[in-house]
Each structure stands twice: as structure tokens, then as C-alpha cells.
């Protein structure tokens, strides 16, 4: 009897594959995460940012986009802990009389949306072109990678500034303000695809030589199937690593563009345009309009970079250039 139950237990231990969560808890990702204090703190802060961005309409006491709720008489009130501060506005107000806390919440949301969407676009273009270049090789490879080199020889900021300035001049700032979000995503997304294409191509070149790719070719699978179903899943770890860093970069780029007046309009400020709008008042003593969103932006970017570093150490893709 006991023998039978034992054999059943053994059979079960062989049959039942561990669930994903159990596997994750056994993996070295979890172990390394448990040991790494920096990664834990960064992850917690990052999750807080994401939650704040997701639930900003619920968390924010006022709606900064609603012009009716803004009173110009409330402008430039310092944070509540200073002497002139008011309890209504925890972090004070900006020059338009908007509650800074609500505006930062909405701004974080916009910055994250732009960062994530721009990186999704980068990743899409970069993965398709990089995979094609690496797998096809020869002339296709040379052509795509030379295009990437050309693209990289212009700095992202320069491309973005020229493009956005020309657009603003050609179509007027009204249309520009309406399309600002999409335009920023497009510009940052298109300007940075070579980062992905290069990383992917390098891993594809390494994977392509492995015998499982030959096995797939011998099976008669088409190149699309081999590229996306067989090679791509094996090149995902470097993609994951550069994605975290690229989101941070995209947020910084967006902030810089907004600071230069080419980003989000004042009526819908991202963190960058909030910093820019406060910059005029920094010498008249209203430091909080610039400094507080600045701290939020720096924290967000720092945390993402630290997470990226940790991921790179764990996944160890040798091909990523720091």
C-alpha cells in the first residue's frame, strides 16, 4: 500500500511540471533580487511611480487640465510646510495656480506614456529591421546597418528639434499642441531604432549559427517563422535590458524637448514642461515649481537605470554596450 502511494508520488513529481511562479521562485533571478537591496528599492519606487501614473485621476486632489478649477489668484503658493504655504496645496502651486502635486501626478503619467510608447515603437522597428539584417545577411544586412549608422550619426535631440520645429512652423502651434503627444512618441521612437537593431542583430548573428536554426531550416520552415518563432525568443534578454534604459532615455529626451519648448504644451504639462515653466520663476523665489518635478524626474530615471543595471547583471547579455 505504502509502496503504491510512494510510486504514485514519484510519478507525480515527474509528471507535474512546476508552475511558472514556482519556477520563478527557484530561479536565480529571484535569488539575486532577494540579495540586491538597490534592486529592491528601485523596483519598489518604480512600482510606486507606475501606480501613481495609472491612478493619477484618483490620487490627484484637482484636475490640472480643468481650467474651471484653476484660480489664477492661487498662483505661486509655496509648499504647505513653508510659512506662506496653504494646506490645500501640499506641494504648492505653479504660476498658473495649478496644484503642483496633481500636476506632477498627471505629468508623470504623460512622461511614462511617452517613454513607454516611444520605446515600443523603437523596439518594433528595431527588432524587425535588426532580425532581418542579422538573418538575411549580405547586402540586406549591409544596407540596413549602414542606414542605422547614418541615423546614429545624427543625435536624437538634433533630429527631434529640427523635425518638431519644422512641424510647428509649418502647421502652426495649435495643431502642434493637439498632436504633441503623438508627435513626441513618433519622433523619439523613430530616432532611436538603431539601438535596438544593433543589439538584436548581434544576438541574431550568434543564434543563427546554432544547430536548432539549421534544424528548423531542414524542416522546411519559412524564414519568417524561423526568425520570429525560433530566433527572436532566444534574443529577448538583451532586449529587456536595453528597454529599461531606453525608456529612461526617452523620458529624458522628452523632458529636454519640453524644456526647449518643443514638447508637451503648457496646458498639458509633462514633467519636462513643468520644469521649464517653473524655470522663469526660479530667481523670484518660486523654486518649488522647478525643483519638485525635477526631483520626481531624476528619481524616476535613476530608478529605471538602476533596474536596468540589475537586469543586465542577472541576464548577462555580453553584447550590450553600457
Amino acid at each position, binding site marked *: 500500500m505504502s509502496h503504491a502511494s510512494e510510486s504514485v508520488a514519484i510519478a507525480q513529481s515527474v509528471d507535474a*511540471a512546476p508552475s511558472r511562479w514556482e519556477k520563478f521562485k527557484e530561479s536565480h533571478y529571484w535569488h539575486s533580487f532577494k540579495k540586491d537591496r538597490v534592486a529592491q528599492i528601485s523596483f519598489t519606487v518604480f512600482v510606486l511611480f507606475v501606480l501613481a501614473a495609472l491612478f493619477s485621476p484618483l490620487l490627484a486632489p484637482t484636475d490640472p487640465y480643468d481650467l474651471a478649477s484653476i484660480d489664477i489668484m492661487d498662483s505661486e503658493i509655496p509648499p504647505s510646510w513653508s510659512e506662506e504655504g496653504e494646506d490645500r496645496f501640499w506641494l504648492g502651486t505653479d504660476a498658473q495656480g495649478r496644484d503642483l502635486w496633481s500636476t506632477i501626478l498627471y505629468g508623470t503619467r504623460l512622461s511614462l506614456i511617452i517613454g513607454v510608447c516611444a520605446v515600443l515603437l523603437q523596439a518594433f522597428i528595431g527588432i524587425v529591421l535588426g532580425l532581418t539584417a542579422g538573418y538575411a545577411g549580405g547586402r540586406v544586412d549591409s544596407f540596413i546597418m549602414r542606414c542605422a549608422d547614418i541615423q546614429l550619426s545624427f543625435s536624437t535631440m538634433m533630429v527631434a528639434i529640427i523635425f518638431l520645429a519644422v512641424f510647428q512652423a509649418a502647421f502652426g502651434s495649435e495643431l502642434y499642441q493637439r498632436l504633441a503627444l503623438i508627435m513626441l512618441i513618433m519622433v523619439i521612437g523613430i530616432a532611436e531604432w538603431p539601438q535596438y537593431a544593433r543589439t538584436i542583430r548581434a544576438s541574431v548573428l550568434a543564434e543563427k549559427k546554432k*544547430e*536548432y536554426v*539549421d*534544424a528548423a*531550416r*531542414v*524542416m522546411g520552415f*519559412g*524564414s519568417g517563422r524561423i526568425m520570429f518563432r525560433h530566433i527572436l525568443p532566444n534574443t529577448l534578454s538583451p532586449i529587456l535590458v536595453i528597454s529599461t534604459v531606453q525608456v529612461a532615455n526617452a523620458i529624458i529626451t522628452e523632458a529636454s524637448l519640453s524644456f526647449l519648448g518643443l514638447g508637451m504644451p503648457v496646458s498639458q504639462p509633462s514633467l519636462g514642461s513643468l520644469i521649464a515653466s517653473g524655470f522663469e520663476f526660479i530667481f523670484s523665489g518660486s523654486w518649488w515649481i522647478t525643483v519638485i518635478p525635477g526631483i520626481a524626474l531624476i528619481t524616476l530615471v535613476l530608478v529605471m537605470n538602476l533596474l536596468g543595471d540589475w537586469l543586465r547583471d542577472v541576464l548577462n547579455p555580453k553584447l550590450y554596450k553600457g
Partner: protein
Amino acid sequence: MKPVTQPLLEIKNLYQHFDLSGDFLDRLHFKNGRPALKEEKVHAINGVSFNVEKGESLCVVGESGCGKSTVARTVMGLLKPTQGEVRFAGERIDDLSVKDMRPYRKRMQMIFQNPYASLNPRMRIRETLEEPVRFHNPEWNEQQISDKVDEVMASVGIDPTWGVRYPHEFSGGQRQRISIARALAVDPEFIVADEPISALDVSIQAQVLNLMTEAQKARNLTYLFITHDLSVVEHFASRVVVMYLGTVCELATSKTLFQTPKHPYTRALLSAIPKLETKKPEFIRLTGEVPTPVNLPSGCVFHGRCPYANARCMEEIPKLTLQNDGSQVACHGIEEGRIPD
């Protein structure tokens, strides 16, 4: 003398050259003050011809770098031959597109050398096995596919319930069985095995070889078996092709080859097999190194190391000629009868 039955696979005068000279700028150089394009090639296969008859196990042996694997990869269409043709069941297959090649993919399959690289690490093994079945039998339903996968897994001695696991959870021998199962999953009649056991532990090699022999009997398979392990050849092969530097030296049945090797290279190769005998034949020590396939020697590729070479060997490339016992040897010395038995 024409064979009555058609050979399953025919390789005719195959050449495979790999370009080493790179792109235009790398090739450009100056010769006597004038720009010229230099060309550098690896001559991996130089005029190889042989047939594989239905139901046999043809072994290709030779040392590293002699073009064995290149022959296998060219036969499977992973490489396009520079010259020559490959025919399968009478039809030419070396110039087909991926799409036109598909019906033949179902009939010929390949087993790879390295079981650690030949399975996709991100796919569960059931997915790895189901994909080709589903791909080549689009009209089958899920139940039929699943039954087929269970059947091949059982036939190679892998429990079908292990299908939910990933390749890294298996040992080398088990992975090689899974690779064999993948090849068998589409019911091929011809299998090219590129050193399938050289990456395995010796104790596992026999198991995998026996598995392949059983599969051959059960499924009526034909093998083209690439190896450098001569004891495996003796055990496994019905006929043997000996290659040296991209050319065929000798082609004979396994028995004839091991009893009466003719080509000087084959003799040297066979004398290198370690044997537990007191009365061993003298070990033939070849002088020199294998020449580089970038600059092939003129005439017989073996002449630089052959103790019997003469002026003719340095100029004329020997052709495979039929001997009295049915073997084919490419050697001027044998043809002229100047090599002692």
C-alpha cells in the same frame, strides 16, 4: 553497368567553395601598380560523387576538415553547391526554392552533432516535436498530432509525459533521442546524421546507435552517416566512403574496406584504430600535415603525404575506378598496380 534499381540519393560531381575574400574593399589590392580584385576560396568539396542506395547505411569517414559535414549540409539543402547536383529519388533537389523543397523535407531529415545546440532552448520539447508534424500535415487535427508525437517519443525511449519540460532539463543522450524523435516525426525515408554521437558519452553512444539501428529496421530508413569514429563505421555501415580534403579516396562495402583497404590514405587511417592485439599490423605514420583547402595541391590531393606518389600523382587528378572486389578507389598507384598489397 547500369543499376536496376534507382539509388535514393545521387551526388554528382559536387563542388562546394566558400569565398574568403570578403566584400569589395577587402578584395581590392594592387598588383604591379594596377588595381586588381583578389579571390580566395576554401575548396571544401572538390568533385565528390557517390550514390546512396535504398535501405543502406552509408558512412562517410575522414579526419576533421575533410568536408564530411559540408557534404551532409549540401545534401540537405542548407548550402547551395557551387557546382554539381544532388538528386533525390531521381529528382534534382539542389536548386529548389524553400517552398519547392518542402515535399522533400518530409522525406529526408537530419540529425545534428551537438545535442546541446540542436534543440531550441525556449521551446518545450513537445512544442519542438509538434511543430514539424503540424507544419507538414496541415490537415491533421490536434488529437492526431498529439498521438503522432506520443508515438515517436515512445519509440525513442522518452516518456511522452516529459513533453512539458524544456531541453535544459534533459541529459545529452536524452536530448539526442529527442533530436532523433524530431527527425522521425515527419516519417522520413532518408536521414542524414552528422556525427550524431560524437558529442555523447561513450556509454550513451551505443544506446543511441542501437536506437538508430532499431529505427532503421522498424521504419525502413536509409542513413547517410557522417562520422570520424572508425569503430562505429565497422559496427554500423553497410558501405563506407573515405574522404580526404574534399575528395573521395575510396568507396567500398564495410567488410571489404576493413579487410582489404586499398587507397594509401585508407590504409593509414585504418592502421590508426587502436586494437587489443599483440600481433598488430604496423602503424602507418604519415608525414606532414593536411594541406590547407585554400590552396589545393595539384593532381591527387594526397600526393604530398603518400609514400607511393610519383610524377603522375602530382599532375593528374585520379578518378574513382572500380576494382575487382567491387570497391572504387581513386589512386593512380592502384590503377597502375605499383602499390603492394
